[in-house]
């Protein structure tokens, strides 16, 4: 589990991802969109990285400069955990198309995963130089600033900031659509374009650099055009009935109930019930001892203040009758911040009870 102290995450980014899904869906129905690139994108979404890479390479053989193809390749490398290749790909894109904010953003995400926060910050500031209103980059940059601040406080006060420097999860951008001035909004123009460089046009003249950064507000509100509009809370979609299709529906039902009860225990700060959902062989993050981990969770989950943890659509993959993987989008809301992340739980059924063996944020 990569810390429940989930990080500020761009709701806008979520919108963006959702919009992308729409675009992709539309694209699928348009003959103009067919081709190795779309296939590659589909394969990536299906988790077939090797196939996706193969397809994108085919596409790039014909159009070696194509930004969208190269961008997708970067995403595929990221999915394959080939961080070095992903960095090289996104970096080259930033050099060839410095006006595109997305490659900078994704570069930053990978740097942040590697805890190279200074580099991540530089990349995000670059993204914002050309697109001052780019919400995702703003949100990510805010996260980076918090992280760097934690490190600085750690050094100032000689306190252990290892908690604060836990691996961060920033929003990766999945398509080159953010070049429009309204950042998050989907540009319908992005739909027709295998040539894609249409989307790569220097959308807006860069604003003066002072606007390119979020104005720090110290004890006073600073009005700035550069500030992204307040992210509108996205209603968490009511979990759709699990595709009540076949036999295993029963097990899926059990798992859904277990996860929902686990989330409810968390929201209610019922630490005992919450911890009860973790298997005795649960893999603690950072190989902490069970005792330390429980102590830390007790402290964090039990911290005063209202919190609400909920989930989006749940996908359950069963392997046998007593093992399963459950993935969902988890939203965390407290008075001080809200965040959402993709969560995957490795579950095991013991004594008739589904328990968490491992917890991933991805």
């Amino acid at each position: 589990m990569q810390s429940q102290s989930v990080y500020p995450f761009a709701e806008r980014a979520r919108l963006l991802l959702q919009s992308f899904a729409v675009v992709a869906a539309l694209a699928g129905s348009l003959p103009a969109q067919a081709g190795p690139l779309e296939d590659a994108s589909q394969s990536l979404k299906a988790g077939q990285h090797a196939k996706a890479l193969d397809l994108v390479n085919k596409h790039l053989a014909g159009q070696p400069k194509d930004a969208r193809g190269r961008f997708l390749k970067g995403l595929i490398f990221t999915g394959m955990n080939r961080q070095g290749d992903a960095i090289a790909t996104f970096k080259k894109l930033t050099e060839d198309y410095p006006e595109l904010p997305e490659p900078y953003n994704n570069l930053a995400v990978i740097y942040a995963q590697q805890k190279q926060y200074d580099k991540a910050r530089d990349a995000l500031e670059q993204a914002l130089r050309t697109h001052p209103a780019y919400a995702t980059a703003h949100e990510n940059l805010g996260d980076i600033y918090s992280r760097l601040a934690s490190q600085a406080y750690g050094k100032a006060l000689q306190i252990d900031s290892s908690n604060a420097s836990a691996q961060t999860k920033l929003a990766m951008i999945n398509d080159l659509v953010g070049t429009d001035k309204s950042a998050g909004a989907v540009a319908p123009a992005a739909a027709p374009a295998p040539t894609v460089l249409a989307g790569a046009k220097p959308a807006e003249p860069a604003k003066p650099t002072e606007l390119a950064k979020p104005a720090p507000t110290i004890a006073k509100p600073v009005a700035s055009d550069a500030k992204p509009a307040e992210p509108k809370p996205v209603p968490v979609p009511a979990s759709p009935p699990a595709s009540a299709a076949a036999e295993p529906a029963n097990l899926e039902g059990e798992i859904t109930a277990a996860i929902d009860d686990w989330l409810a225990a968390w929201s209610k700060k019922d630490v005992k019930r919450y911890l009860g959902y973790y298997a005795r062989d649960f893999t603690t993050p950072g190989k902490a001892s069970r005792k330390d981990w429980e102590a830390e969770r007790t402290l964090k989950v039990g911290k005063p203040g209202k919190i609400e943890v909920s989930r989006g659509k749940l996908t359950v993959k069963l392997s046998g009758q007593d093992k399963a993987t459950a993935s969902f989008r988890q939203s965390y809301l407290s008075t001080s911040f809200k965040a959402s992340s993709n969560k995957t739980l490795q579950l095991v059924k013991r004594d008739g009870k589904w328990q968490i063996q491992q917890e991933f944020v991805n």
Partner: protein
Amino acid sequence: MKKSTGFLLGVVAAALIGAEAGLAAPPARYTDSGPEPLLARIFEQIDQNSWETAYRETESLLKAYPNFRLGHLIKGDLLLARTRPLNRFGEGGGKEAGEQIADLREEAIARLRAYKSKPAETQVPRYLLQMRPDQKHAVVVDTQRARLYLYQNDNGTPRFVADYYIAHGKLGAEKIKEGDKKTPIGVYHVTSSIPRQKLPDFYGSGAFPINYPNEWDKKQGRNGYGIWLHGTPSDTFSRPPKSSDGCVVLANTDLDALAKNLQLGTTPVIISNSIEWLSLDNWQAERQALLAMIDEWRRDWESLDIERYARHYARDFASDRKDRATWIAQKRKVNAGKQWIKVTTGNVSMFRNPGKDEYVVVTFEQDYQSSNLNNRTQKRQYWIKEDGRWKIVHEDAV
């Protein structure tokens, strides 16, 4: 001033109040070799809402002083301020760190105040009345300002060389007894040097013990020991203004620079609550008046007139377990056997004690010749003001 100064305003304002209470800015002859100039610029930038510049300069500051905790705290604030409004200095450091943050705030105030209100070139610490020719330097500490000033002996006139940030006792100054976590106030000197290799890392690049308790302290019944000038641990650039058990703590680089000018057994270290500054004219007048009194004492001794000699000794005089009456009686007896006495003094030093106890420590080489005895001694006297007149309250040979 705009209403936008925010969380760091407290620090800047406090520093400026200090500046107003202090002295006029002198010409730039100060070394300013520490982090203060950059620190002051950073606070100015923050005050003017130039966050970016402030941040860049904080990064430069930390490049030069990687273990400067105050710098890291400011960096944290500048970063965090980009994500949310801050109301207090070090706010993002967390509630548990309140005391540490208060300490760092004190350090910021002390450093800025010392930087912005440096003593003028025409002023000298009142305590350095007369340095001996062999005393190349003198150290004067101001605990309230968290500052140590190094002076050079320029033919008897103190000339400013450098000043450094220091930390002193957790519970302040005016040490009285062992374990009171206070720094002594008085006139001392460096007695020895302990090299880094013989010390735990805690003491940094070296230590220089001073002679607390001195004769005066002992006379007042003060005790305790182990008061040193020393450095900081390797992971710490500087410590909060009030953080030691009584020692005077300098950054290692500063201690190293200072060490080059310390002569063991010789260099005076005068520790004050708050330095009294005199114009060179007033300093000269005070110095001449006391020199004249010492000369009068010398001539009255030569006169063999015991009453004239005796009037230089204070009611509370005590030396070598002799009180005033015994001392004078013995002198009278000795004088009776002499036809003549000739006394000359050389290598005079005079250091005024800072603070409440108003006395001056005088040392000199005494060449004593008489009809039946000659000797040369190194003499030490404590002079106090009694009924408006300088008188000797303690005298011995060292």
